[in-house]
């Protein structure tokens, strides 16, 4: 009788303590297992949010593989690094030009011979990096391969005038570069968002709608020519790196945009 009662008690204890405890353990384990994939998913999602998206492509055989390269390297860098080079991709070797002005450290001038306009002949390309509010912004100046322009450059103020005088250049200062080939739905969405942000300015007539562009790069620029499967392209972006443009240089100041990549603004607010 006593044994029976003890058995009942044990059952009661099991029901009131052990079973709930066991259920809790099961619940906890399932909760943890549910949380872990969720955390992994969130991490993956966060990585995804950090990545670039291809939003315009005129040449998938270049833009799609380049998207993979940008997502591998440009999340932490401002240009394609040398380790990204491979069978299809080669970077340009730049040779520094010394002007004999060893005092200042505010600008860098480099040269390379490359067929920047893909016409079968190499051109002399001069890359200028100069300081704008402490950050280095870049421009490219293009000359025939036999040009003597470098011998005309001098150190000091105004000494680079022969460089800047060429009509063949990629130099957006003080202007900017508008992404003119955005697909219409994306253009409309971006424009709508921008107009919302600028609504007060538009309402007060301080700016006009025609001053707005849905996407542009400007300010402090990175201009990186590179060779992709025997054609020269130029990667163009700015300090915010929200947009990366891959273009082909034609002539004068004309570029043909081939791919647009979009990512988050990577410049942290002050």
């Amino acid at each position: 009788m006593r044994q029976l009662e003890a058995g009942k008690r044990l059952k009661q204890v099991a029901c009131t303590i052990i079973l709930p405890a066991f259920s809790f353990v099961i619940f906890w384990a399932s909760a943890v297992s549910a949380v872990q994939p969720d955390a992994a998913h969130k991490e993956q999602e966060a990585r995804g949010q950090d990545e670039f998206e291809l939003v315009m492509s005129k040449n998938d055989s270049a833009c799609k593989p380049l998207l993979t390269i940008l997502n591998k390297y440009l999340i932490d860098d401002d240009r394609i690094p040398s380790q990204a080079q491979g069978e299809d991709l080669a970077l340009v070797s730049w040779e520094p030009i010394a002007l004999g002005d060893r005092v200042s450290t505010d600008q860098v001038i480099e040269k390379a011979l490359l067929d920047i306009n893909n016409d079968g002949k190499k051109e002399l390309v001069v890359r200028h990096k100069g300081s704008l509010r402490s950050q280095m912004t870049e421009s490219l100046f293009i000359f025939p391969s036999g040009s003597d322009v470098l011998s005309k450059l001098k150190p000091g103020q105004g000494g680079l005038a022969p460089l800047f005088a060429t009509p063949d250049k990629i130099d957006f200062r003080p202007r900017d570069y508008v992404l003119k080939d955005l697909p219409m739905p994306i253009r409309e969405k971006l424009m709508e968002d921008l107009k919302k942000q600028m609504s007060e300015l538009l309402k007060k007539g301080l700016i006009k709608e025609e001053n707005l562009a849905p996407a542009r790069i400007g300010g402090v620029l990175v201009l990186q020519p590179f060779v992709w499967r025997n054609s020269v392209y130029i990667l163009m972006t700015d300090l915010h790196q929200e947009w990366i443009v891959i273009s082909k240089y034609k002539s004068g100041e004309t570029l043909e945009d081939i791919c647009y990549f979009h990512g988050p603004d990577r410049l942290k607010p002050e």
Partner: protein
Amino acid sequence: MLTLHTNYTLGSYQADRDDFLERRENLPLYNDPTAPSVPPHFDGGSSIAIGFGLDLLNNSIASINNWLANLGPLSFHDEQLINQAKALAIKNEATLIPIASQFELNLQSFSNAVTVLDAILATKEGELNQLLASRGIVLDQSRERAALVSLYFNGRPKYNAQGQVVSHNLIGPNLLNALANGNRAEAWYEIRYQTNRERITDRRVAGGIAIRRYAESDTFGLYENAPLTDAEAKSIFRMYTAHRDVIQTYESDSWNRKGARLLSLRYGETAA
């Protein structure tokens, strides 16, 4: 007590100081001294500037008008533009470039831009004096002072209710201590390695800041303007021993290396 350098490249303190800042604040304008127009421009980050680093969104209208002097004051239209731009939630090329293009303000010439820079620097020099005087430091016109003026110009002061400068984010207690103690090596270290917080907080701009800090510390100088003494050599060695790890970490940082690489290119060496 520092033995100051007064061997100016361009013949005077003001000429060297201005040249240093002009090149770093707006090299495109510096390289184009006959520019017929000097309008406001998007600064690449989150502001609009004009000329040689007159920031239109991070200074008060009163200060801007004071510096514009004979060229100013700002029109009501431009004041509205500035206030609207300051209120924007997103400040980037898409929002600020269209605003920069609508200003009535135009400095019109290189020489006007220099005049405005000198007006800003007159204010900054006075504020730097206040900051230095708070630690009993007097620093005469010299290359060392030009380096500190650049640092002061590039950072942000804090003011008390009376409008006096009480602190500065780039000329902090350690640098002031070093200057007060006449410890040149320690001051050089502070300028070069302890004033680039972007290395941690925003690596995208760290390389550019590193270049400026290298140039400022070079201008300040690691050595006195006198024959090297045992005491000075020991002071430099002491500084290096105390901060070796920080220096090595900084110099090996990939973004700072970019800055260093640009410098080595500038000096005609082979790229790393």
